[in-house]
């Protein structure tokens, strides 16, 4: 349970799809002029991620991992006689499932809920090539998410993170239409800068899940690592200096 909650909050705030890894920026910038359309696109992204990430997890687990084909015949497993690693097919398989699922979802929604289709409809085909969707599956694979439940959790929470981001920027863009932005910055330029500032704000969530640890993990962020290396070197220099004095 804790694992699930941790992953949920981590994916929304710390590894936010827009502010930490910049996925889905193209549609994020293009669709964020009004809050209403942003909400529609955000909801569609959550929906598609929730479906495709678990599906791709199953594919990854039973087909693409090294030795994953052991359910077919033990000789294909790790250490078996004909060990198989189909990992290089990941990209094409993931994008194929995403494109198919999006097409399926579009057909189903059109048939069973025409009103929903009319409000979401134009965004669904666009989403198949949204890097946030493929990114969700690829990060699920590279971070080695362990169970199907966690994969579903990851899909939904990454979607919510993206939804939060596009909602916020749409609201801000609606308001700054009445501000005096310098002409060359108007539109795209100021949106980039605002998104950067929002990203800086979201960095503040970085300490959220490490509080309470007895021994905090050394941070992997570059600046912290540079500091770490520098202090190590200084300590070593001091130690060397004291040796030569003897």
């Amino acid at each position, binding site marked *: 349970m804790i694992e699930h909650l941790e992953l949920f909050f981590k994916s929304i705030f710390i590894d936010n799809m827009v*502010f*930490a*890894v*910049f*996925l*889905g*920026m*193209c549609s994020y*910038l*293009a669709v964020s002029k009004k809050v209403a359309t942003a909400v529609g696109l955000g909801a569609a992204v959550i929906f598609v991620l929730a479906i495709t990430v678990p599906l791709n997890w199953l594919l990854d687990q039973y087909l693409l991992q090294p030795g994953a084909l052991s359910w077919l015949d033990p000789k294909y497993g790790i250490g078996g006689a004909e060990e198989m690693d189909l990992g*290089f*097919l*990941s*990209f*094409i398989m993931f*994008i*194929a499932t995403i*494109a198919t699922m999006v097409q399926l979802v579009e057909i189903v929604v059109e048939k069973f809920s025409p009103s929903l289709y009319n409000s979401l409809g134009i965004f669904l*085909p666009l989403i*198949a*090539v*949204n*890097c946030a*969707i*493929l*990114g969700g599956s*690829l*990060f699920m694979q*590279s971070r080695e998410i362990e169970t199907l439940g966690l994969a579903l959790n990851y899909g939904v929470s990454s979607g919510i993170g993206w939804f939060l981001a596009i909602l916020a920027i749409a609201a801000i863009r609606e308001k700054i239409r009445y501000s005096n932005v*310098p*002409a*060359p*910055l*108007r*539109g*795209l*330029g*100021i*949106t*980039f*800068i605002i*998104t*950067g*500032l*929002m*990203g*800086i704000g979201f*960095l503040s969530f970085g300490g959220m899940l490490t509080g309470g640890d007895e021994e905090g993990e050394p941070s992997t*962020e*570059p*600046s912290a690592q*540079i*500091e770490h290396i*520098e202090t190590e*070197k*200084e300590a070593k*220099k001091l130690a060397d200096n004291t040796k030569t004095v003897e």
Partner: protein
Amino acid sequence: MGLLSKKDANLIIDPLTDNNPITIQVLGICSALAITAELKASLVMGIAVLFVLGVGNVVISLMRNIIPSKIRIIVQLIVVATLVIIVDQVLKAFAFELSKTLSVFIGLIITNCIIMGRFEAFALGNGPWKSFLDGIGNSLGYAVILIIVGFFRELLGSGTLFGIPVLGDPIEKTGVYASGYENNGFMLMPPMALIIVGLIIWVQRSRNKDLIED
């Protein structure tokens, strides 16, 4: 020189400034920002996109008359995915460290909107040679922005370029560091890439008033 006619030469030059895929067409932003903390990574990403877009444009252009319209997105995705798998395997074989830095972003070239965008806008309606030039031009325009952002981020963030210290040694306090300068570690954080691109857009639109949005 008669190698490239004026119109063909424009296919390469326009995307470098006036029709830049990132700052004007607003495509390909995702991968442009996340990996630019090191100049080397930016350069390699630029080369990868050059290969995928150049070859992909030619392939789609050669097939343009036989692709049924209803499944053209799927065909495009398959062509791009295959080319990206090739790039990924080559990188893993010859530059393993770099492929670890670039990790999933090589895979994300598949959904890089520049590639699909140019397929739809150009390759599906033009011949192979012109499509090749268009692909080269747009990927050069993309690479230019990546290199500029990577240059500033690496220089101001770690004082190095391509991993070589150019401002002096921060520990020994030589060079610029002797007068109290410190590396701006913040430049290595993702949000700064967004702000730098915003500034590039500002400069570009100040120089060319036609591009200013209403």
